[in-house]
């Protein structure tokens, strides 16, 4: 039995632990700096518990993100009131946005973070998995447990919403008390 555990530990260390920084980035965006450590700890405890069910030929990072999302839903999200998302096939919720405006500027990291934090969480997860972790649509669909078409829809609407929010904050740069408050809380 001890040998079995040792082999499992070695595989866990090789396959699962290297993804901790990626999971931490996501956890921080979902629950904030104060609770990110707890979300990570619980995710890895669950991953360790069910590691035997992980198929080594598949993507361990996507498997871990799926666990993280499930832990987050069961422990954190249920405490927050969030409006349901319109999915593919529903009416367009985001006003038409044509990418024509110049919304990006230097030193915009706080604006991006604030805009991300205001996106509906399913849009935010899709964007983070695609843009930061560079997962394929198929992998994102597996993490979010939804069809690929829904992933496409979330990315399309989420990015437009994100650009619009960043542009709004950029316009109010330096004068918005909300932005000052956000920066103060961040520091």
């Amino acid at each position, binding site marked *: 039995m*001890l040998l079995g*555990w040792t082999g499992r530990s070695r595989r866990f260390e090789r396959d699962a632990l290297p993804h901790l920084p990626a999971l931490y980035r996501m956890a921080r965006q979902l629950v904030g700096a104060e609770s990110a450590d707890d979300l990570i700890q619980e995710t890895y405890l669950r991953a360790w518990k069910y590691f035997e069910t992980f198929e080594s030929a598949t993507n361990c990072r996507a498997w871990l993100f799926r666990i993280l999302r499930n832990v987050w839903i069961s422990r954190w999200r249920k405490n927050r009131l969030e409006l349901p998302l319109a999915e593919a096939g529903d009416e367009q919720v985001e006003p038409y946005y044509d990418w024509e405006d110049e919304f990006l500027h230097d030193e915009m990291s706080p604006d*991006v973070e604030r805009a991300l934090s205001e996106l509906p969480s399913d849009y935010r997860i899709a964007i983070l998995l695609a843009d*930061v972790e560079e997962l394929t649509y198929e992998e994102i669909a597996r993490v979010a447990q939804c069809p690929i078409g829904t992933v496409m829809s979330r990315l399309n609407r989420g990015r437009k919403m994100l650009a619009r929010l960043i542009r709004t904050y950029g316009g109010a740069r330096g004068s918005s008390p909300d932005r000052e408050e956000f920066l103060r809380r961040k520091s």
Partner: protein
Amino acid sequence: MMDCKNIREIVDLYVDGELSPEATVQANAHLAECDSCRRTVDRLNRLRQAVKASVGQYQPTAQLVARVRKSTITSWLRPTIWIAAAAAMLLIAAAFSFTPQVRSAVANGLEFVAFHVEDSRATVMEGKLLCRECLLKDEYGYHALCPTRGHHGSLQTKDGKIWHILDGDASEELIHNSKLLGHTVRIHGRCFRRASSIEVDSYEVL
């Protein structure tokens, strides 16, 4: 050949590298000729980079990495765990063949193991107080010592799980006051998940 409308429809797939090779060739052909669509692709790419730069700056602390390692892989390799587990097995075996005094020692030993085999976390738990020995008697015909030693309170949470209440000043009444049995209580304390045990800081009867 794609037009501007087609590009706007597939621009996310284009920047994410999800288009088929044929569609990518067609998109590239249009982009080579259209300034407006090139700007769209450029802005979307810059947005992606800005998200990556903004989120990618955060790294887990060394303490978190150590904590995760400790609670998963190394917890099963530490020899103290195996020694504690072996000691617990011996104590359990002894419990079936010796006197009530030995059973009490077994309980204390198991509590010692519970304290040392894992990290605990602060928790608030709600559930019904039930006598563990009576439950075992009803379920498995266990020879309960309740008539001579009194009942021993344990907490049953809504999911049906039975939590052992660790001995302590704050838990005295919960464990030994049989009048509380059957009542719903809320316990504030620390939870030892793998040992299915709780250490009580305070409690309230609901």
